[in-house]
């Protein structure tokens, strides 16, 4: 594999929460707010769920609230099965969540309210993005950097990138394919089911796949 001039710069994202002032104490209230809350709020409670260090048994905040606070396990499972990365826009994702809740309400039309204090609070975020000061120019350097960058870096390049870029792909595989010419390796990375991993899980998977490629190509 030839060394190229193209470099990959690791960036990190962190967020500061902003309250929307909207909350829900029952699934009907959640449905009403979900229909009109900002796209930024839907984004925060779904995509940005993957930023959380402790990946619980859920895949978005709505599912977690349905499971933990409402104790509506079936609804929680259905909401958890919605993969936000399958949708081309936040509005498409919003429609799917709304549809899932409406279908649930058709089956169970009188859901309970949560105990006072367990309401769902809709937030948005301010996102701050900055380079962490690590640039790499080949796969070996990339491999070593990947071991040390923090989870927020992985989130930014592997998860959030898909919402940023038109092609819905992660930054890592894009660079590996177009910057390093490693199409097969890029494909392998794209086959990782990001929905089934935490950021740390993704890091370990990437390290494993790249290490294999480095050994096989005598590149390490």
């Amino acid at each position: 594999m030839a060394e190229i001039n193209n470099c990959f710069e690791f960036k990190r994202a962190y967020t500061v929460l902003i309250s929307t002032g909207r909350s829900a104490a029952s699934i009907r209230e959640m449905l009403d707010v979900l229909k009109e809350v900002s796209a930024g709020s839907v984004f925060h409670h779904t995509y940005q769920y993957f930023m959380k260090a402790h990946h619980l048994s859920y895949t978005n905040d709505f599912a977690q609230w349905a499971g933990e606070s409402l104790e509506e396990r079936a609804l929680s499972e259905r909401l958890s099965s919605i993969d936000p990365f399958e949708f081309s826009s936040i509005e498409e994702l919003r429609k799917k969540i709304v549809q899932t809740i409406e279908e649930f309400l058709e089956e169970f039309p009188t859901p309970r309210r949560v105990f006072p204090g367990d309401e769902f609070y809709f937030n948005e975020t301010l996102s701050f993005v900055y380079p962490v000061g690590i640039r790499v120019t080949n796969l070996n350097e990339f491999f070593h950097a990947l071991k040390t960058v923090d989870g927020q870096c992985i989130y930014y390049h592997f998860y959030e990138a898909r919402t940023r870029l038109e092609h819905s792909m992660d930054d890592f595989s894009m660079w590996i394919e177009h910057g390093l010419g490693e199409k097969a390796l890029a494909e392998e990375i794209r086959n990782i089911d990001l929905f089934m991993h935490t950021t740390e899980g993704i890091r370990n998977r990437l390290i494993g796949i790249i290490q294999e490629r480095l050994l096989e190509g005598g590149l390490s």
Partner: protein
Amino acid sequence: MIELYRGIAPEGDLVIIERLCSRLRDRSFLHINSTRAGGGVAEILHRMIPFLQSLGIKARWEVIKGDDRFFDITKKMHNALQGNDVRFTDEMFQYHYEVNQRNARELDLEADMVFIHDPQPSPLVEFRKKGSGKWLWRCHIDLSVPSKPVCDYLMRYYKKYDASIFSISKFARGLKRFEFIVPPSIDPISEKNRDLTEEEIERILQNYNIPLDRPMILQVSRFDRFKDPVGVIKAYRIVKNYNDCILVLAGSPATDDPEGEEVLKEVQAYAEGDPDIYILMLPPNSNLEINALQRAATVILQKSIKEGFGLTVSEAMWKGKPVIGGAAGGIPLQIIHGITGFLVYSIEGAAFRIRQFLNNPEMTRRMGERGREHVRNNFLITRQIRDYLSIWYYLEFGEGRILEL
């Protein structure tokens, strides 16, 4: 000063703090609250102000002055905002305003960014000069079910701020365009949280005649009914039927909390006759002592019924101790149930979880380790400084919701 945090705080937070401070260099940042001793706000300001100064920010901290009547009113206000039924008269509101008016004459309120902490100094915004910097109300207390008359009174000031910060989402009011959510934090290198040697711990505990030969259950908090110290004793008494242990309740007086003495007497009366209960009213700033107690404890409780945030939970977790806490205020953000500790809803629940920890040292160690990492990533002072600077930067220069720095 930032160097002191390298290897302790996440490196990414330190990088961004330096970057934001270089962009806000030589600008002024004023904090105003109502006490220099006691409570989490004062503790953080003691460290945050010199930290920011060392990075080129003109940071200042002022404290409003008031007499006993003023602090009695503000304590009642605090209780009313946390849901207690407290009667207020117009004279009380008027006196609250007048004391702030007197403070406004004495204080220099000019700064590029002004943070007013909690309700006590909130009327100061009335004396803000035209064209002055941004004013932000930083509310640390639980406003989820406030008493309406007191809340209505404070809202007349609240509306005059440019933005506000609450510790958790459920405290936000939904009245302003910018209501930010920033959890508070602990300082890992302070006397209260730095590493201690075994000798230091033993010496401090000996000073208070606390034995180290049995497991210790500990709650560190002000003597305040919202912290349920009597409930803690009841839980300990259940545990005592199964496990030999001691209970330590430790707190410090705060100048803005006139009820503390009364609650302390109630707790002492309830504990009377049990030589294994140690009730310590520590002098203000007994940080080293609290540190030693937390490190010596086997299980730490924060059995609050109402809570602003409950930073003692993060303090305990930073020392590798799992915590059993009431599901109030910010405690559920710190205790991830079953991972970094347990959330409890009753005295019986607290007792059951204490027994679990006392009987499962491996689980206790594992949860303690996870808790420490959770605090490292989310509840250290560097993250809070990062968030404050980010909000300030956004209010001054930001457009859109994504900022490239």
